[in-house]
């Protein structure tokens, strides 16, 4: 432990105060001690915060065995769970709880009671599983909520709260998605120069010398091996030779086949929906289960069959696995989008406004008759309300509850299909392969069925579209968000168990792109698409006259107008009137467009400046290396070309588009060697060793 003079001086300067240089020694020592305690406290608090993140160890375990792309699915699932938990808190705390605690109980008014005609079957399990009977007239659906302006001691305004929560769910989700996208794109921008020593760093710095636990050590070995394999795949991709024409032709062929299958599935759904509209006109009791649920069945079937079909066709294309995943995601997205929107059109077609108008008119007419009879019979003007039991009142069809029921049924069937698929497709398959292998002619594990691989694209898209359905259905069925929270929780445990026990790692393990913005971008798109039907309903369709928190009003958003007129001071009403003036809104929109354009231009300029700085750094580095080499005896200027880092992330268009940087000045040894010959040396995107 030899200390030279330089180090001694540094030691003294550091501890000058503590060694008693003079005045203020005690205060200095105290300050130093408090600073140290503060640092320790901060570090402990950070450790605590990290320990609080749920499922972290489980995800790390999956990552070490299966690679970062499979783990990124579970991280996404965890993020969704957090989002849904917050949405559930909003819906439950601001809509469901007030109605339950301060509103009228079941059976007190017409909309909260099962009608007389349905009462004998209301408790049957088959009716309950179809969300009819007592389920239909419960807090799960829109129709239960009363339309009184204020309820309870606290004067809680339920209709206003319902509307604001319905819209607020979208607003909050939008904010969270955009914030996550911004944060991800921020991290994706570092990278810098570490593509230069990928393999060397991995070899010499990836082991954590602080590991003492054997299980942790096992995980670490697995993750190091996987990380090496990922880099090897990247390197091999960059070295492959290609026959361009054959490849292009195969790719065009593959795209054509896939377009055909997409068209086929669209046509099938259209056909089935038309048939279901015919079935709706027949008597419900005569239809078999299959005919009643045909639409959901066909949609689930398409969702199961098409993705593997797309994957098989995609083998013609021979893309890098990361790029192939992106294509697969895009195609499955198109499939699910077509399915979902067809389903939506079918649903809103069934909203039969004529029938409702006729029942409403009949009710009003009946009431008027009652009043005129009563006043002519008893000769008073003070008429009590009609004395009918709530179960006997004539009801309108209440289309919002019907729509809510459809969404809940679709979500439930989606959950069932997903879990069944995992059970049969993965677990049963693994059992069969493992146990039948002893008495089978060919090797089941290496040959035909073998163990399944985890289907990342299918699962991610399933998650995204499930969320889209929740967003659409939450307005009509407040209980749906709670259902989704339960579903995500069980999914996390179920899928992580299934992956660890029934799946094998992909043959070609590849690194997930650092920026998860691709998933987030899809989610954003789905968010906008699911916002449209809800906003359309709120603005255009009239609410049912006898069920839900907006009954009796012309449009749903009238609640907001009423609140502004009655509850808020007069000048706020004036402000709103001015603010909704088109003369004010158009300039505001124009201003926002200009701001977007300006910010876009600024960000492009910053990116260019960044690139220039990187190039400068490269040149300086090269210059230093050449000088350093020239100083060593007998060293010739080495013709190592500089490779600008190749961005092979999920967002990059073509991994082969590497740029060769012309080599720097060669003045010193007079050796006129040009840039190295041979194929372009691209680099996979280097990352520092996985943090642990």
């Amino acid at each position, binding site marked *: 432990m030899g200390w030279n003079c330089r180090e001694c001086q540094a030691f003294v300067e550091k501890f000058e105060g503590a060694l008693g240089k003079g005045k203020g020694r005690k205060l200095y020592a105290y300050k130093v001690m408090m600073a140290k305690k503060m640092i320790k406290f901060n570090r402990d608090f950070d450790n605590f915060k990290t320990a609080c993140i749920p499922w972290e160890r489980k995800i790390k375990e999956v990552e070490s065995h299966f690679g970062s792309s499979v783990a990124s699915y579970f991280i996404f699932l965890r993020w969704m769970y957090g989002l849904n938990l917050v949405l559930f808190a909003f819906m439950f705390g601001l809509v469901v709880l007030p109605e339950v605690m301060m509103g009228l109980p079941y059976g007190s008014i017409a909309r909260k009671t099962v009608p007389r005609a349905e009462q004998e079957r209301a408790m049957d399990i088959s009716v309950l599983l179809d969300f009819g009977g007592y389920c239909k007239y419960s807090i799960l659906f829109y129709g239960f909520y009363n339309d009184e302006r204020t309820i309870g001691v606290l004067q809680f305004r339920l209709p206003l709260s319902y509307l604001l929560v319905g819209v607020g769910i979208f607003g909050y989700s939008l904010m969270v998605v955009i914030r996550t996208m911004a944060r991800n794109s921020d991290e994706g921008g570092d990278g810098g120069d570490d593509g230069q*020593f990928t393999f060397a760093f991995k070899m*010499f*710095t990836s*082991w954590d010398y602080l590991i003492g636990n054997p299980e942790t050590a096992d995980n670490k070995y697995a993750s190091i091996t996987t990380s090496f394999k990922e880099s090897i795949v990247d390197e091999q991709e960059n070295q492959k030779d290609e026959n361009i024409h054959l490849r292009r032709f195969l790719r065009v062929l593959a795209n054509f086949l896939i377009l055909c299958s997409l068209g086929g599935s669209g046509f099938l759904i259209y056909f089935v929906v038309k048939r279901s509209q015919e079935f709706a006109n027949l008597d419900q009791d005569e239809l078999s289960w299959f005919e009643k649920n045909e639409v959901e069945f066909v949609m689930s079937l398409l969702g199961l069959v098409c993705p593997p079909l797309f994957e098989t066709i995609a083998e013609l294309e021979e893309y890098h696995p990361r790029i192939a995943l992106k294509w697969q995601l895009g195609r499955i997205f198109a499939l699910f989008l077509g399915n979902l929107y067809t389903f939506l059109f079918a649903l809103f077609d069934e909203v039969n406004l004529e029938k409702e108008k006729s029942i409403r008119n009949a009710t009003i007419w009946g009431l008027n008759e009652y009043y005129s009879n009563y006043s002519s019979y008893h000769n008073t003007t003070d008429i009590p309300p009609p004395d009918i039991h709530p179960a006997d009142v004539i009801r309108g069809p209440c289309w919002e509850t019907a729509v809510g029921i459809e969404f809940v049924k679709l979500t439930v069937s989606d959950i069932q299909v997903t879990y069944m698929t995992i059970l049969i497709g993965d677990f049963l398959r693994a059992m069969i392969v493992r146990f039948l292998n002893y008495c089978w002619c060919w090797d089941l594990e290496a040959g035909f069925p073998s163990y399944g691989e985890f289907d990342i694209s299918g699962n991610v898209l399933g998650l995204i579209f499930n969320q889209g359905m929740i967003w659409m259905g939450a307005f009509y069925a407040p209980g749906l968000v709670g259902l989704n929270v339960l579903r995500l929780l069980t999914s996390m445990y179920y899928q992580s168990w299934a992956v660890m026990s029934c799946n094998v790692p992909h043959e070609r393990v590849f690194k997930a792109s650092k920026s998860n913005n691709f998933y987030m971008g899809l989610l954003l798109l789905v968010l906008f698409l699911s916002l449209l039907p809800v906003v359309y309903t709120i603005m255009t369709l009239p609410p049912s006259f006898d069920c839900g928190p907006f009954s009796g009003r012309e449009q749903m958003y009238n609640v907001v107008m009423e609140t502004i007129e009655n509850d808020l001071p007069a000048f706020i009403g004036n402000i709103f009137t001015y603010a909704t003036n088109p003369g004010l809104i158009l300039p505001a929109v124009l201003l926002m467009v200009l701001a977007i354009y300006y910010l876009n231009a600024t960000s492009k300029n910053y990116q260019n400046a960044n690139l220039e700085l990187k190039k400068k750094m490269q040149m300086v580095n090269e210059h230093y290396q050449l000088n350093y080499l020239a100083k060593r005896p007998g060293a010739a200027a080495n013709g190592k070309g500089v490779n600008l880092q190749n961005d092979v992330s999920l967002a990059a268009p073509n991994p082969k588009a590497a740029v060769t940087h012309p080599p720097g000045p060669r003045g010193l040894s007079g050796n006129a060697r040009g840039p190295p010959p041979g194929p372009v040396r691209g680099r996979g995107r280097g990352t520092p060793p996985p943090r642990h």
Partner: protein
Amino acid sequence: MKEDVKVKVLIPLLIFIIFLCSRLHGRYHELAPHLVPMDYTNEPDVKIPLALIVSMPELNENPFRNRIVESFSEDGAGNLSFNDFVDMFSVLSETAPRELKAIYAFKIYDFNVDNFLCKEDLEKTLNKLTREELSPEEVTLVCEKAIEEADLDGDSKLSFADFENMITRAPDFLR
């Protein structure tokens, strides 16, 4: 000025060292109680063999434990006297300077002790890291790439200068 430095630095330093040493010696002693004396007045020449040292919990899970102990021993066979023992832990600690760590890291990865990291050394390192789960082609590919990346003087093996140049750019080479 030099007298001042000696007094102000060496005395607290001495106290600090004595305190640490007593704890370290406790650990050294418990590895082989019958071998290690508590009394050093006669300057006994005691060395603990390799097998006992790698059984320490801090080193037990480390794939390079044998090499670590060997590179700190004087005879190169892994028998550590107390001096060597203290040296080893001081280099492995967080407070050791970066250059020192680089020197010893080079020694650890140099399996055939020829002051160069040649391809065989790298292959051994890789196999220890992945517990031989990679195929031979993959191992060859990785070693070739690593030498390509770090070798500056073009002799297809890494001298200490090459290694140091590479390792000082590593983001988390401190543990």
